[in-house]
């Protein structure tokens, strides 16, 4: 029963993060297309990320949603394609999710601090 509830929770978490990510990714894609015109430069990137607190906040939430979404996605792939389920699979994908979160927040800090 607890397992079934956990599966429902993860299913819902994957959809909720997907809704947020749909918005984040659209903004990110538009930013990429705009930013690469005339080549990418560190000064230009850092000027943009330093311009407002909203940008690091946006990317911190983007990183959080992507880490959760990516980890749950990997868990689904491990279960369905590799037949790898249970505590060991959960531990590994949780660790991957935490590493993604830590590296992502570090990147946000690097370009905004």
């Amino acid at each position, binding site marked *: 029963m607890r397992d079934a509830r956990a599966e429902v929770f993860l299913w819902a978490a994957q*959809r909720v993060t*997907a*809704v947020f*990510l*749909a918005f984040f*990714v*659209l903004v*990110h*894609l538009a930013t*990429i*297309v705009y930013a*690469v*015109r005339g*080549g*990418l*430069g*560190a*000064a230009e*990137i*850092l000027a943009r990320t330093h311009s407002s607190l909203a940008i690091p906040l946006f990317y911190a939430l983007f*990183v959080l949603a*992507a880490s959760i979404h*990516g980890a749950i*996605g*990997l868990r689904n*792939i491990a279960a369905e394609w590799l037949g790898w389920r249970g505590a060991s699979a959960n531990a590994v994908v949780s660790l991957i999710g935490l*590493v*993604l979160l830590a*590296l*992502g927040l*570090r*990147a*946000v*800090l*690097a*370009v905004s601090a």
Partner: protein
Amino acid sequence: MMRPARNHPAYWAFLVHRLSGLALTLFLPAHFLALGTALQGEARLDGFLRWTERPWVIAGEWILVMLLAAHLAGGVRLLALELMPWREWQKTLAALAAGFAVVAGLLFALAR
């Protein structure tokens, strides 16, 4: 024995969504580490960005933008299928998803 039906648009949409999601998740650590070079100063990040001007890196970026757009479009399609009652729109949505990925990729390729 019945074999799973695989040669239809919904299966290809599923496969593209899954493989693009996997590739994007594997790419994320590299993306974050690259941006993290800014911790060592603007010059370090600039050095990395100069490295990305190689044609094969730009080709890789182009593929990643396509994968991101495809995963976004496929995800919106899945949300619509699961949360809305209009399943007969499946093929139209799959086509729109593919179209959006191509448009985003072409925009990026033309801009770079």
